[in-house]
């Protein structure tokens, strides 16, 4: 049943217990939010994003594309990417060779061990 607890012998998991607790916690957080002052729609200057006095650029100019989303990661691992990216030749036969080579290595690994 859905309400049963999954006992693996290593740990436990019951999604219903968490969902009930999360609903109660949401209610508590919502009550705290309600205790605050009501929302004030930003008008004029207060409605603009804070940009240290600079003019607000267009949304297109500040859009972070997928390639920039993980910039910190890709920059930190540029040595790895510098080797990996050239391997993506776009040529199907190269990819098939990689699959066959990896498969052969796995067979050798499994056969030896």
């Amino acid at each position, binding site marked *: 049943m859905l*309400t049963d*607890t999954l006992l693996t*012998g*290593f*740990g*436990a*998991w*019951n999604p*219903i*217990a*968490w969902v*009930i*607790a*999360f609903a*109660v*916690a*949401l209610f*508590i*957080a*919502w009550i*705290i*939010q309600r*205790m*605050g*002052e*009501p*929302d*004030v*729609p*930003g*008008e004029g200057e*207060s*409605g*603009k*994003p*804070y*940009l*240290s006095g600079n003019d607000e*650029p267009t*949304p297109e100019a*500040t859009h*972070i594309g997928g390639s*920039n*989303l*993980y*910039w*910190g*990661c890709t*920059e*930190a*691992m540029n040595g790895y990417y510098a080797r990996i990216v050239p391997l993506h030749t776009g040529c199907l036969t190269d990819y098939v060779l990689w699959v066959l080579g990896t498969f052969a290595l796995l067979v050798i690994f499994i056969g030896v061990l």
Partner: protein
Amino acid sequence: MIPMITAAVLGCIGIAVYGMFFGLVLQGVDRKWAARMQARYGPPLHQPFIDIAKLLCKDNIIPKNAVKSVFNAAPVIALAASITILLYLPIGSIMPVLGGWGDIILVIYLLTVPGLAMVAGGLASGSPYATVGSQREMVTMIAYELPLAIAVVAIAWRLNAAGVADPFSLVTLAQTPVWGVVGIPGIIGLLLLMLAIAWVTPAELSRVPCDTPEAETELCGGLLVEYSGKNLALFSLSGAVKMVAMATLTVVLFLPWNLTWFIPLTGAVGIVADLAFFVLKVLLVVFFSVSLIRVGMARFRINHLVTFYWGYITLIGFTGMILLVLDAVLGMGVVA
């Protein structure tokens, strides 16, 4: 079913009060310690409570570009998720409220939810600063999750090798100190894993040197730059509760001993003594993992943060894990 619902509902209310109160106290203590280490007097211990009360009296300005529903929902989800983490963690000798219905793997997943809510809130702010802050928060999360997972899995694996049932259960981890089942290589491995977790804590809490998503001096608050009033209060409360959760997780993994294990105290006296000892251990963790590090270091650049966690801290974690495996393979300590 009824005991589970009762525990979830009543436990959640109690734990919410405990988590927010203790979290704000810990933030006050941290600020006081940091001030004293910088030769300042520092704010009073109850300053975080005053800050929350002040924020609840301030206007909640919604930026014109913001996606209002996500902007308002994110802080609520962040606080609610932080509270539910505490339901799976023990407090002194009091076992977790939902300990029988979830384990440490769930806790690792739940630790990411407040961060993801902040990312959603930042992206919904309609501010370039907040967008960059959200991007950095995601990268930070990617960076510190691996060493955290390594430490947890290594400890659970070693307990399993020693024949301990349910090694991922928080009840098991709280009642079975892993130090008791390891030999010399295992002790060195555990010290290394403790070091890794001590460094994961400031990243989980977005504290210096891992406060790159907020970066006051360059992003003016980053993903929180457009937040004010009650929503900022909720994010602050979420951070306070998460601080309790991270410190408790470290205590459970590495310092699970209770005072009553050594001194024959029973009943309420024993529970209070264990609670006092637990608070002492949490303060110890906060001092070394939060206050000391943030006073002694400057902020990492985001790419340095990834290099640091995926390079040095992961290497330390892996070395610790290999030593624990060797400990069991060589038959040092307890092996089933």
